[in-house]
């Protein structure tokens, strides 16, 4: 649903945004969940299988907040990060690679236990949709 920024009706004056008393930082009541920028789902930070959830389990979208170290919150971008591809660790664990839609930066994160399996498999099958590369790989074997 598009956000309505322009007021309708008689009152066309722009009122400055109200000051917020509630801090959404560490220790406050919103410290343990976030809202997905892609599908607006309320996501709890408690995830099965990982202690560092950074993406929505429904649409796998993330937010660009970290600069170099995960958790440093030093990035000034704040753009939406789309899931780009999947990679596998040497121990067989799947990792998700995100790319920022605003600045193009890449980041990697482990998948969580409640991530959407259908979206993950679609992401894993995406390179295999094009049969040109598979045909050239078969030619390389012969």
């Amino acid at each position, binding site marked *: 649903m598009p956000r309505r920024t322009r007021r309708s009706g008689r009152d066309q004056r722009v009122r400055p945004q109200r000051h917020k008393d509630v801090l959404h930082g560490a220790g406050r009541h919103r410290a343990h969940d976030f809202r997905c920028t892609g599908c607006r789902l309320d996501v709890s930070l408690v995830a099965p299988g990982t202690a560092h959830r950074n993406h929505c389990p429904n649409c796998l979208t993330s937010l660009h907040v970290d600069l170099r170290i995960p958790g440093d919150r030093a990035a000034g971008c704040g753009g939406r990060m789309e899931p780009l*591809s999947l990679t596998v660790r040497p121990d067989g664990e799947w990792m998700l690679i995100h790319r920022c839609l605003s600045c193009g930066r*890449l980041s*990697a994160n482990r998948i969580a236990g409640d991530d959407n399996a259908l979206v993950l*498999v679609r992401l894993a099958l995406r390179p295999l949709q094009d049969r040109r590369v598979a045909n050239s790989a078969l*030619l390389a074997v012969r």
Partner: protein
Amino acid sequence: MSSDHLAHQHRTTPSAALSTDTFTCVRCGLTVSSYAADTTRRNHCPSCLHSRHVLDQVEGGPSACGSRMSPIAIAVLRTGDWTLVHRCVRCGELSSDPVCADDNQLILMRMAVRPLADPPFPLEAFGTL
């Protein structure tokens, strides 16, 4: 001919001296020409697909790391082209480079099917969808 036009021409088609430029792969030691057959600049070895960390991805410009970057994943752009995702083995930074035409197809295919070889959940349920 203006110098601006000369610079543009230099960027698109490398001169004869530049097109014979080579580099040595840090992993397999293969001597690789810096420009591919379609005159695009190469940044990874076509044999083992490894690269070097010479560009800083966060702030831009040259990187002080200079370590080896191993290929970890294949990403597909909206145009359908394949892109190789590299990770630096020393500092863990990620970068993405387009795939060249003469890259090792076996390594590319192996990376593409690698997630499906060991899925974290059973894939049998997707057959009923």
